[in-house]
């Protein structure tokens, strides 16, 4: 599903954010990405989502070489991904429904299909019935779940989550993680960046450990 082959990312003034990273994620695998802050977790997710381009090496996403993707085709790569951010990145002036519908709207789905899928996604994260509310009117945990609904509404092959539980208490974190497990069980590949070591060890999934841009355990 996802293959990194000797990937490096160097920033002009900040040195190497990733150094010679190689790993392979199988389809339907759930993997944690961990390491101290500044170890390169976010950079690794960004090069997959093509928010950054890697300086050296090869990234294969679902068999597609990301180095060879032209700029105007980047949107189509992103449609295969579900991105989840620590700060949710919800649009505050849109309803929950409109926020979750955004990936479908930009992909040109019809209205009925959008309504059906958005409700299915909101049902999955347990927020059906709150679709007319605005993000500021719901709790932080609910906002994060809206972010997850938006990430899965397009039926992505790979979910990338950057510190999805960073702002949540342990109980809510466990809930969110349970959601990810459910997606993994239906065949979606999930890559979660997190520095919450306790949570990781308790859940017992494979972990990629980064240290100063280098992969030290896989």
């Amino acid at each position, binding site marked *: 599903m996802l293959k990194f082959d000797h990937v490096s990312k160097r920033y002009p003034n900040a040195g190497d954010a990733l150094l010679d990273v190689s790993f392979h994620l199988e389809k339907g695998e759930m993997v944690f990405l961990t390491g101290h802050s500044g170890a390169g977790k976010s950079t690794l997710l960004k090069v997959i989502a093509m928010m950054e381009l890697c300086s050296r090496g090869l990234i294969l996403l679902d068999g597609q070489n990301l180095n060879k993707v032209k700029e105007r085709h980047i949107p189509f790569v992103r449609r295969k991904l579900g991105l989840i951010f620590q700060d949710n990145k919800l*649009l505050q002036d849109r309803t929950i429904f409109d926020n979750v519908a955004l*990936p479908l709207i930009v992909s*040109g789905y019809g209205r009925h299909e959008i309504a059906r899928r958005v409700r299915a996604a909101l049902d999955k994260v347990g927020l059906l019935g709150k679709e007319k509310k605005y993000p500021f009117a719901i709790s932080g945990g609910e906002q994060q779940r809206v972010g997850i609904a938006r990430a899965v509404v397009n039926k992505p092959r790979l979910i990338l989550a950057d510190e999805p539980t960073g702002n949540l208490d342990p109980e809510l974190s466990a809930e969110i993680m349970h959601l990810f497990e459910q997606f993994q069980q239906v065949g979606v590949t999930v890559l979660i960046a997190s520095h919450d070591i306790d949570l990781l060890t308790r859940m017992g999934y494979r972990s990629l450990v980064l240290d100063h841009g280098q992969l030290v355990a896989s």
Partner: protein
Amino acid sequence: MENKLRQRQSKGNGELSDKSQAYLHIHAHALFSSLGRLVRNPFTSAMTIIVMAIAISLASGFYLIVVNMQQLTGNIESTNQISLFLKSNVSDTSAQKLADKIRNNNNVEQVKFISKFQALEEFKVYSGFGDALNMLDKNPLPAVIQVLPKNTLGDVQGVEVLMKKFNHFSQVDFAQMDMQWIKRLQTIMQIIERGVFLLSILLGFAVLFITGNTIRLELQNRRDEVLISKLVGATHSFIQRPFLYTGFWLGFFSGVVAWFLVMVMMNTLQNPIEKLSILYNGAFDVLYLGINETVYLLGITSLLGVIGAWVVLRYQIRQIKPE
């Protein structure tokens, strides 16, 4: 089995129309949401639109002034007619002989002799000074031979050569090309026309840049939205669509406001122009923007708005990147 197949087909058709409907829906949504945004910020929108409208009304106002002035010069048929004013001591018979002689010239199409007496009668009729002229004991007007050169003579230079030749006749006081002043006026009008054209281009650029700058600010205000749309897989054309429609609305509305401004200006000018028209025996009416011109005006301003937006979006959307 057959039933199932039919069901699937109808479902397929439904999906197809759903998709094309979605495309229309996206456009309609962009069209009206961009309008809604303009309406929700009435002060900012009005400022921009009025500035643009002033630039547009300047251009179209000058255009109308030119069109109206063209009536003055355009109605008069341009001919190369020459008038030979004869010396006062030349008798009518000798003048007739001269006229016959000129008629034989190969370059002359038509000759008309107007005697002193005829000239006076004509002048009385057209000038309205009849009574005053009656008080004169002597006819002050000279006899005139009107000569129409052949068209084969070419333009002004040929006519001038002919005129010089007539000037050498001893009976002729002086020769004059009747329409010279019209030609001068027409040339001046051509210069003004070109000047207005150049000015319109400059003002068009002003409209382009005002739209561009407005769109740039709008894009900055909606940075988050653009960024998130990009992250969920929106293409550039999807992101820029509502902004292009904003450019369209700005151009369209400034065209409408400019139209009103021009109408008000022409209305203010109507009275003095009508007075002038009466002095010219009602030679022309005040011309306003017609239906065709209004359609052109709105079409051009809308297009300028879209182009101004597009030029900015082309570069600015690329600039918006995560972090």
